């Protein structure tokens, strides 16, 4: 049975901080940091936003663009590494807020930056096997970086939600392929406030091995090549890795630029690949094929081959406010205000 994306929605906070503002606090060369990471600024969740509120906002838009009743959603899975509670499901908060309760299953997933795409895979299985009518898969994070760490320049905030089902998809998911190993490139121990990472080790043996492994595995499985795809979306921990992954795989850089948003909003972790896919769906035409490959430290990648259908041209099937419009609706804050909103000040 064909399974696909029925609706989608994204939520990007309004606040931004520029890389040069963070660099000025720590006495670093802003130009070198910005060009080294390929990031100009990042989205900052305000004090009253967290991964649950962003998940709810994106879910409401996804349900609206799907044109379905929330009560017909049989599963909600939220992928995040910045849950507001260590123990208490964000998915249940989302289910209540969108009025999908009580007849559904719900759970939170964690796999660094790829938990959102794993949520999609679970919804695909449940809806294709007709255990549920629709599943709601969400990637949402308000990522934190230790002050003065490279991650502080890149860790952003955002969410994307996808309604997955079999009826009138705006994009069919032809296949998915995953690649997973135990690779300690990035982690946050129990009760630790900030994550640790293994510097350059996060590239070759981690991001590239798994991203290329999943993307190549998927294309081998389907017998497709980069030339068969109009767009490619890769996980984007910075603004440079996706270009290198695309180049190694044989994708022209123009094919990844529509879904490469980290330079403007930072790495939104579990949401990064999914917001990239949303930006592509905002502009894609029927027949366009999209290769999507997430990456989560620890480590693993989920790849998807997606083909846009004619349904996407029908009224109200795309999200009402496109990703780029959300990105351009912004307010810059200085470091002190950023520190207040992200509760980085002692005693808050």
């Amino acid at each position, binding site marked *: 049975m064909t399974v696909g994306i029925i609706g989608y929605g994204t939520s990007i906070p*309004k606040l931004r901080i520029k890389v040069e503002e963070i660099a000025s606090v720590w006495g670093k060369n802003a130009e070198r940091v910005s060009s080294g990471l390929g990031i100009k600024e990042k989205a900052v969740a*305000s004090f009253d936003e967290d991964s649950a*509120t962003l998940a*709810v*906002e994106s879910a*409401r838009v996804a349900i609206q663009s799907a044109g379905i009743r929330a009560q017909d959603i049989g599963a909600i899975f939220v992928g995040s590494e910045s849950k507001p509670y260590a123990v*208490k499901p964000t998915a249940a908060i989302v289910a*209540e807020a969108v009025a999908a309760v009580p007849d559904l299953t719900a759970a939170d997933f964690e796999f660094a930056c790829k938990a959102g795409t794993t949520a999609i895979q679970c919804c695909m299985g449940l809806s294709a096997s007709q255990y549920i009518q629709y599943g709601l898969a969400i990637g949402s994070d308000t990522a934190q970086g230790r002050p003065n760490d490279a991650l502080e320049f890149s860790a952003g905030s955002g969410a994307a939600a996808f309604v997955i089902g079999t009826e009138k998809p705006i994009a069919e998911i032809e296949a998915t392929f995953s690649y997973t190993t135990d690779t300690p490139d990035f982690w946050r121990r129990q009760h630790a406030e900030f994550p640790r990472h293994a510097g350059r080790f996060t590239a070759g043996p981690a991001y590239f091995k798994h991203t290329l492994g999943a993307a190549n595995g998927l294309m081998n499985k389907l017998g497709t090549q980069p030339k068969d795809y109009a767009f490619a979306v890769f996980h984007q921990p910075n603004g440079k890795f996706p270009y290198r992954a695309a180049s190694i795989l044989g994708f022209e850089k123009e094919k990844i630029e529509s879904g490469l948003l980290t330079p403007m909003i930072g790495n939104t972790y579990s949401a990064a690949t999914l917001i990239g896919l949303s930006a592509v769906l905002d502009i894609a035409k029927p027949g366009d094929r999209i290769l999507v490959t997430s990456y989560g430290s620890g480590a693993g990648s989920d790849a998807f081959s997606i083909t846009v259908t004619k349904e996407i041209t029908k009224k109200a099937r795309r999200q009402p406010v496109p990703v780029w419009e959300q990105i351009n609706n912004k307010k810059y804050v200085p470091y002190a205000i950023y520190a207040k909103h992200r509760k980085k000040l002692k005693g808050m």
Partner: protein
Amino acid sequence: MVGTQPLIWRRIPERYRLHGSKCLTCNAEFFPQRQFCPNCRRKGKLVKEHMPMDGTIYSYTYVHSAPEGFEYHVPYFMAIIELKNGVRLMSQLADSEPESVKINASVRMVFRRVHESEAEEAIAYGYKFKVVD
């Protein structure tokens, strides 16, 4: 305070999704929910009704001296919102610049953290409104 949890829980339908009431006898709508229609009295029949998430600012004030638990929010706007069905409610405004907050400005409901007394306590989520173009 752990004792506030039943109160937070009871208000989830109204705070998360603007769950109000409608009287099937006179069609009047209410928020928050009512048990009794003030127009029809014993002839009224109240059912649950979702309020619209869009409206306009009916009136507002700019808060500089906040009550306990909201000290970090200042300065912030509190507004009386007139929803599209005419029902009015009080709400904090989010993501709204002072120059955009005006009487009759269009607003839309957003889902935010409303209150969090201590780091280890449960978080109270709910509605706020933001000015939209």
